[in-house]
C-alpha cells in the first residue's frame, strides 16, 4: 500500500493545479471560475477567498452538486496549503465526472502571501448559534437574516396590548435594539392581555416592566426606553434612526402624527389596531406603497371610534394581531417573503376569518403625494376637523 505522502503526490500528478495568481487574474478578468473552499467550518469562518462557496471535504460528495450542478463548469478547489484540495479535486474528477476541476497550489496561505484579499465573515457566538439555531436552519432567514435581525433597530409605539407580544417575540428573534415608547404605568386591568407585564409590577412604568421581561428572555437585546407620550414636538427626534416602527397606539391623533413623521423620514410602519373581536393589519412603506392617510383620509367622529377602554377587547386578540405585526417586522428586516404593503388584513376572531383588501396609493394624498422635504412641522398629525375631533374625544 502507498503511504499517505505517496498518495498525495500521485493525486497531484493526476489533476490540474493552478497558481493563486491565475485564479485571482481570471476572477478580475470576468472569467471567474467557481471557487470552492474545502476546509472545515472554523477555518472558513476565520477568512476565505471572496465569493468562495464552502463545501467541507467531509461533505464533498454529498454537497458538491448543490454548489456546482454543472459538471462542465470550471471549478477551482482550495484548502489551507493545497493538499486536501488536491485529493478533493481527484475525487471530483475521477469519481464524480467533473470535467474542468483544478486545485489551487499553496491554498489560501499562498493566496494571502500573494497579497490578495480575504473575506472574514461575521460570525455568531456559540451562544447565539445555539439560541438562533431554528432560524439558521431556515433558508429564508439563515445566518444572513439572523445578522440583519441582530443589527435591526425596531421601535414599538405602546408597550400595551399589541406591543406586549410584539416586544417579546422580536426580543426572542434576536432583534438587536428594541425601542419602547409608553408613558403609562402597569394597571391590573392591563394584565388580561398585556402579557409582557406581571402582577407584581402593577404601578411600575410600562417601559421598565417591559424591559425586565425582554432582558429576562434575551439579555442580548438592547432596550431603548422612551417614557413619554409622542407629540409633534418630540416625534421626529424619537423615531429617527429606527429601521421599522410598530404602531400599536390607542388613538387617532397619534396615528396620523406617526404617519406623517414616518413618511418624512421614510421609515416603514407595521400598523395594527384592535377592538372587541376584530383586528386590522397593514404595512405602510413610504413611497413604496400607500400611507395611513391614503387608507383613512380622515378619522371617524368620536362616537364611531370607541376605544378598547370603553368597549372592551378580547384578551387574546392583541396577541394574534401583535404577532402578525412581529412577523411583518421580521419579513421587512430580513427581506423574506412578501410584506403586507398595499394590503389590509381584517381578522374577525369570532368568525375566524381573514379578509384581504387592496389599499392603493392616493395620488392626491395630502402627505405622501409630496416629497418629504415639503411636509412642514405644522402639518404633522393634523387632519380635517382635527380640533373638533379632539374636543369631542376629550
Amino acid at each position, binding site marked *: 500500500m502507498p503511504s499517505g505522502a505517496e498518495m498525495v503526490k500521485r493525486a497531484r500528478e493526476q489533476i490540474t493545479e493552478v497558481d493563486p495568481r491565475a485564479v485571482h487574474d481570471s476572477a478580475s478578468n470576468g472569467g471567474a471560475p467557481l471557487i470552492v473552499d474545502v476546509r472545515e467550518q472554523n477555518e472558513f469562518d476565520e477568512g476565505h477567498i471572496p465569493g468562495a462557496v464552502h463545501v467541507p471535504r467531509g461533505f464533498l460528495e454529498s454537497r458538491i452538486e448543490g454548489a456546482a450542478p454543472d459538471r462542465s463548469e470550471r471549478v477551482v478547489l482550495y484548502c489551507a496549503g493545497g493538499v486536501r484540495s488536491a485529493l478533493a479535486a481527484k475525487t471530483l474528477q475521477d469519481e464524480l465526472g467533473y470535467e474542468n476541476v483544478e486545485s489551487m497550489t499553496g491554498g489560501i496561505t499562498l493566496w494571502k502571501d500573494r497579497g490578495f484579499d480575504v473575506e472574514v465573515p461575521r460570525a455568531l457566538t456559540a451562544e447565539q448559534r445555539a439560541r438562533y439555531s431554528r432560524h439558521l436552519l431556515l433558508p429564508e432567514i439563515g445566518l444572513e437574516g439572523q445578522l440583519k435581525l441582530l443589527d435591526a433597530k425596531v421601535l414599538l409605539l405602546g408597550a400595551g396590548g399589541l406591543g406586549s407580544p410584539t416586544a417579546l417575540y422580536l426580543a426572542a428573534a434576536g432583534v438587536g435594539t428594541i425601542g419602547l415608547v409608553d408613558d403609562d404605568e402597569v394597571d391590573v386591568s392591563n394584565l388580561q392581555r398585556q402579557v409582557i407585564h406581571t402582577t407584581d409590577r402593577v404601578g411600575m412604568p410600562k417601559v421598565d416592566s417591559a424591559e425586565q421581561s425582554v432582558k429576562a428572555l434575551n439579555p442580548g437585546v438592547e432596550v431603548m426606553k422612551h417614557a413619554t407620550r409622542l407629540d409633534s414636538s418630540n416625534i421626529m427626534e424619537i423615531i429617527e434612526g429606527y429601521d421599522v416602527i410598530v404602531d400599536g397606539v390607542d388613538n387617532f391623533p397619534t396615528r396620523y402624527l406617526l404617519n406623517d413623521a414616518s413618511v418624512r423620514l421614510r421609515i416603514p410602519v407595521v400598523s395594527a389596531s384592535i377592538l372587541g373581536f*376584530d383586528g386590522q393589519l397593514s404595512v405602510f412603506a413610504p413611497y413604496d406603497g400607500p400611507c395611513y392617510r391614503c387608507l*383613512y383620509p380622515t378619522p*371617524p367622529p368620536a362616537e364611531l*371610534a*370607541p376605544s*378598547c377602554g370603553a368597549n372592551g377587547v378580547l384578551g387574546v386578540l392583541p396577541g394574534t394581531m401583535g404577532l402578525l405585526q412581529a412577523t411583518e417586522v421580521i419579513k421587512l428586516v430580513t427581506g423574506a417573503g412578501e410584506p403586507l404593503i398595499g394590503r389590509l388584513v*381584517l381578522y374577525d376572531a369570532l368568525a375566524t376569518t381573514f379578509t384581504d*383588501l387592496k389599499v392603493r396609493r392616493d395620488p392626491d394624498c395630502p402627505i405622501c403625494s409630496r416629497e418629504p422635504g415639503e411636509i412642514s412641522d405644522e402639518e404633522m398629525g393634523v387632519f380635517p376637523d382635527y380640533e373638533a375631533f379632539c374636543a369631542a374625544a376629550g
Partner: protein
Amino acid sequence: MSVIRIPPVLRAATGGEKEVAAEGQNVRELLERLAAEHPATQSQLFAEDGELNRYVNVYLNDEDVRVLDGLETPVGGRDTLVILPAMAGG
C-alpha cells in the same frame, strides 16, 4: 342578492347583524337599501350631500370603491360589500 358586511361599530345600528343581504344595481343602491332597512346607519354612512362620509371606506370584494366608480360602481349578485371604518385601539 349581494351581501353587505357590517363592521362592529355599526352593528348597534343593524340590531347586531354582521351581514345584511341587499338587492341593488350599484353600490349606492345597496347602501341606500341598508339605510332604509336600518335607518340608524344613514347618518353614519352618508354625508348631508348624499355622498359617502369621508371616514367610511367601502370595498367591493377586495377593491376600494374610490378607485372604481365610487357609489355608482355596478354590483353583481355574488358580490360582497365591506364597510370599513378606521379603528385606533391598541
